[in-house]
C-alpha cells in the first residue's frame, strides 16, 4: 500500500480525485433513482405535487444521513478487518 515516490503519489492523487468525482456522480444518480421511484407515482400532471416535492426533500435528507452513518460504520469495520488480516 505504501512505498510510493512523490511523483507516484501525485499521479495517484489525480486518479483518486477522478474516482471521487465518478463516485459522487454514482451516489447522486442512485439518490435520484431512489427518491423518484419512492416518491413520484402520480402522472396526472407534469409538475411535482406538493406531496411529491416534500417526499423527495425528506428522502434526500434521509439518504444523506444514511450515507453518512453507513460511511462511518464502513470505515470502522474496514479498519477492524484490515487489522485482523494483518494479524493472521
Amino acid at each position, binding site marked *: 500500500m505504501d512505498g510510493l515516490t512523490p511523483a507516484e503519489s501525485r499521479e495517484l492523487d489525480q486518479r483518486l480525485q477522478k474516482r471521487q468525482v465518478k463516485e459522487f456522480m454514482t451516489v447522486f444518480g442512485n439518490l435520484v433513482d431512489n427518491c423518484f421511484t419512492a416518491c413520484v407515482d402520480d402522472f396526472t400532471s407534469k409538475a411535482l405535487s406538493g406531496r411529491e416535492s416534500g417526499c423527495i426533500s425528506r428522502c434526500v435528507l434521509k439518504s444523506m444521513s444514511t450515507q*453518512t452513518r453507513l*460511511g462511518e460504520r464502513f470505515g470502522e469495520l474496514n479498519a477492524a478487518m484490515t487489522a485482523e488480516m494483518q494479524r493472521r
Partner: protein
Amino acid sequence: MFGLGRPQPSSAEKIAAVENELKVVAEMHSRMVKICTLKCIDKTYREGELSKGESVCLDRCAAKFFEAHQKISDQLQKETQARGGGGFGM
C-alpha cells in the same frame, strides 16, 4: 452541471471536460428511460404500440424527472455547503 470557472485548460482537459459533460447527460438520459419505462409501460405487452395513456404518462414522467433532478441537485448543493463541504461522509 456543476460549472467551474478555470483559466486556460489544456487540449486534453478540454476534450475530457466535453466528454464528461456528455457522459453525465447520457447517464441522466439512461436513468430516465429506465425509470419512466417502469412507471408508465404496461408489462404485459399485449400491444406493440404506445397507448395514448402510456404516451402521456411518459411525457409527464420525463418532465417530473427533470424537475426532481434539478430539485435534488439544488438541495444537495445547499445541504453539502451547510454541512461544510465533504458531504455524504465520503
